[in-house]
């Protein structure tokens, strides 16, 4: 049986998500205000740190593994990246370490 309610949910959440992506282009596309131009230059830096925090939002220092796997893997990624500046190396090493920690040490 076709689940109409689930269909509506996909359509509505899709329309809103995609609408939010389009909104700034519709609002500022023709004549971009100076403040928006300024935001376009500084936001990428602020947004990337916000996204990193967003990815780690579920980490709790008081429960489970106390955030040790996340902290260890992030530190390795930062140190490796400052040292070698090789994106793929940093990501693979951090992820493998994290997988090892959550699967074999803190399970």
């Amino acid at each position: 049986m076709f689940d109409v309610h689930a269909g509506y949910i996909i359509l509505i959440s899709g329309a809103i998500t995609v609408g939010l992506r389009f909104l700034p282009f519709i609002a500022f596309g023709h004549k971009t205000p100076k403040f928006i131009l300024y935001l376009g230059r500084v936001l990428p830096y602020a947004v990337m740190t916000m996204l990193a925090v967003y990815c780690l939002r579920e980490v709790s220092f008081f429960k489970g593994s106390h955030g040790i796997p996340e902290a260890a893997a992030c530190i390795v990624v930062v140190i490796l990246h400052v040292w070698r500046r090789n994106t793929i190396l940093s990501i693979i090493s951090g992820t493998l370490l994290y997988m090892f920690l959550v699967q074999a040490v803190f399970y």
Partner: protein
Amino acid sequence: MRRAFKDTIPVMTGYIVLGIGYGILMSAKGYSALWALAAGIIIYSGTMQFVAIDLFSGAPLGTVALTSLMVSARHLFYGVSMVERYKKIRGLKKLYMIYALTDETYSLVCESDDEDYCFWVSLLDHLYWIIGGVLGGLLGQIIPFDSRGIDFALTALFVTICVEQWLNTENHTPALIGICSSVLCLLVFGANNFLIPSMILITVFLFILRKKMEQNYNV
């Protein structure tokens, strides 16, 4: 295109794995690979799609709309950052690139002014996501290996980009504003509600410090 492929490899890992997870979860709830495919095309936002699964069990459509607004509001920031950079692109290509502006795609295209590169990153990321979702839907419960923790690839991608940006610029104020505002809001509002307050706080700080940054760093 080759550079786009190389740069999207981390996204590929994360998206295919997350996509498979999504497909498996959908099939466990009784929605086939076709549903995963439709959601991947229509919504195309990992977070939103996972949240939508929770809403399937009879949430009122008003709640659905409000939740979508809260979860996806961060996309406003991506649009604001890319308005000027995507200005020269025309037609369907531009519409597609705006539609496909996810967290991970944004993280790569916000570093580049090259139209073709941005287009290929958008398209490749989208394909990975859809392939992952359909694979997961078809696989059902059979997982070939213990993949717990592999979703850290996306966290590692964002952390790497933060480091790269930090090393490439003299002006660390925006990055510090981003991390301080979001950590503060996370502590105050909790994991499910901190994104919108963070965005407001970031905008307020950037507004207050605008003169100073424009003088000191010529941003």
